[in-house]
């Protein structure tokens, strides 16, 4: 019992530490990549190649004055950043990083991910409401509508994978993707479930509130949206949550569609991290490339295009499984 507990605590500490470190350096990566895309340098003054920039940012944010607006709802205002940050971290509990490296393998792992993921929206909505500011409120309202709408397509897009595997456990899903088709193509779900994969990527981008779906914080119209009134570490928490979510979604996409840690030659954990890095790069690339949606376009696209496509994908997959079985 003691040994089991110690092992669990050690694994949790390792994963948390790595995720937080990755989050810090993800901010630098994003600024560097976007800088490159826009033909400028990005941060380069603090340390060699700007490598100490995240640390400088962290220290700066810690020492900034912490402001709570007079008319804000104090309790919820302080509570909201934590609500936003905690779900982003506990998603990693069920992600398999390697053949035997997973914190816990529960038989409804995928549902756990969605249950936890659906809570992140509370942080944003409550922050928007508690700030008692019109920009914040509008940002919060937008994010509530947007995230509930795209959660449907997100949930439906992975049903194809679940049907093909016959299990909700993420470990089972990765193990089912081992081996090759015709000795060349890896048995990754992205090949038979390509439509599901595309829907998953678009919806998860919307769930992350990142460009082109960053309407809750659209700076050209809402100042900064739901976090307009936040400062200091509470402000930083929202950003940490966004980047942690980005890593979580990339890890989930890797697990569901790209065979998780499966891959030849290199050690499994390296494969896993490489794939996750690829997805993160894709998210940054999309942000630097695409302009923001208009609100009606966003809703129309979610309900009239993605949702029917996701439903069609579920029906088609079910029919294909029945016919091929």
């Amino acid at each position: 019992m003691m040994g089991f507990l110690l092992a669990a605590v050690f694994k949790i500490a390792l994963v948390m530490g790595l995720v937080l470190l990755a989050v810090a350096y993800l901010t630098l990566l994003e600024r560097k990549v976007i800088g490159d895309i826009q033909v400028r340098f990005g941060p380069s003054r603090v340390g060699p190649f700007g490598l100490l920039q995240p640390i400088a940012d962290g220290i700066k944010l810690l020492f900034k004055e912490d402001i709570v607006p007079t008319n804000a709802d104090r309790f919820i205002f302080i509570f909201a950043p934590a609500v936003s940050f905690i779900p982003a971290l506990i998603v990693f509990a069920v992600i398999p990083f390697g053949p035997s490296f997973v914190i816990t393998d529960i038989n409804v792992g995928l549902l756990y991910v969605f249950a936890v993921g659906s809570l992140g929206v509370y942080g944003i909505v409550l922050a928007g409401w508690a700030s008692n500011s019109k920009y914040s409120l509008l940002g919060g309202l937008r994010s509530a509508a947007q995230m509930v709408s795209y959660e449907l397509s997100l949930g439906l897009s992975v049903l194809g994978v679940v049907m093909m595997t016959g299990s909700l456990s993420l470990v089972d899903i990765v193990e089912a993707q081992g081996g090759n088709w015709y000795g060349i193509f890896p048995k990754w779900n992205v090949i038979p479930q390509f439509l599901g994969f595309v829907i998953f990527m678009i919806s998860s981008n919307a769930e992350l509130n990142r460009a082109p779906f960053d309407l809750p914080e659209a700076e050209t119209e809402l100042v900064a949206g739901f976090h307009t009134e936040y400062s200091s570490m509470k402000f930083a928490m929202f950003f940490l949550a966004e980047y942690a979510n980005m890593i979580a979604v990339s890890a989930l996409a890797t697990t569901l569609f790209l065979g998780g840690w499966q891959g030849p030659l290199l050690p499994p954990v390296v494969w896993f991290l490489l794939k996750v890095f690829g997805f993160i790069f894709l998210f940054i690339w999309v942000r630097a490339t695409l302009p923001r949606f208009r609100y009606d376009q966003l809703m129309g696209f979610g309900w009239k295009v993605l949702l029917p496509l996701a439903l069609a994908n579920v029906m088609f997959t079910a029919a294909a499984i029945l016919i091929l079985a």
Partner: protein
Amino acid sequence: MEWALFLTFALLAGAAAVGMVLQRSPIYSALCLILTFFAQAGLYVLLHAQLIAFVHIIVYAGAIMVLFLFVIMLLDLRPEDHPPVRFGQAGMLLGLILAALLLAELALGIGPRIILGSQGSYDLETLRMLGNTQAVGRILFREYLVPFELTSLILLTAMIGAMVLAKRRPE
């Protein structure tokens, strides 16, 4: 261990439910309700019903309550608009009687079946072999297929009804 967890979740669910009724601010009421859902989900996990637990959180805490909050925020309901509800003596008495009736009904309706009723074909060992989700799926789509489909039809009807009512233009 199990008892300690059960007591924690049960007390939390009860306290949050009471808090939801007594809170004056609609937002805090909604938050209390969300807390109740979490405590309930904890109870489901203790009963080895992981599927129900997480579906409960996804559907109620993740979707329905977000829409509740959305509406509360959209209408900008403030505590001042809602003077605290006052119950007269008669109202209190009636409430207590109704609560007692409900409790008795639950005890009579469910109690005997749990204690005396025959055991179903799914005990913990079979569940572990079969998987929680698979077992629920089997029962739902074999034994209860018709009620299940009927329920979905009712939901569909309600949805269409809501759309028709919302879209109707006043002449």
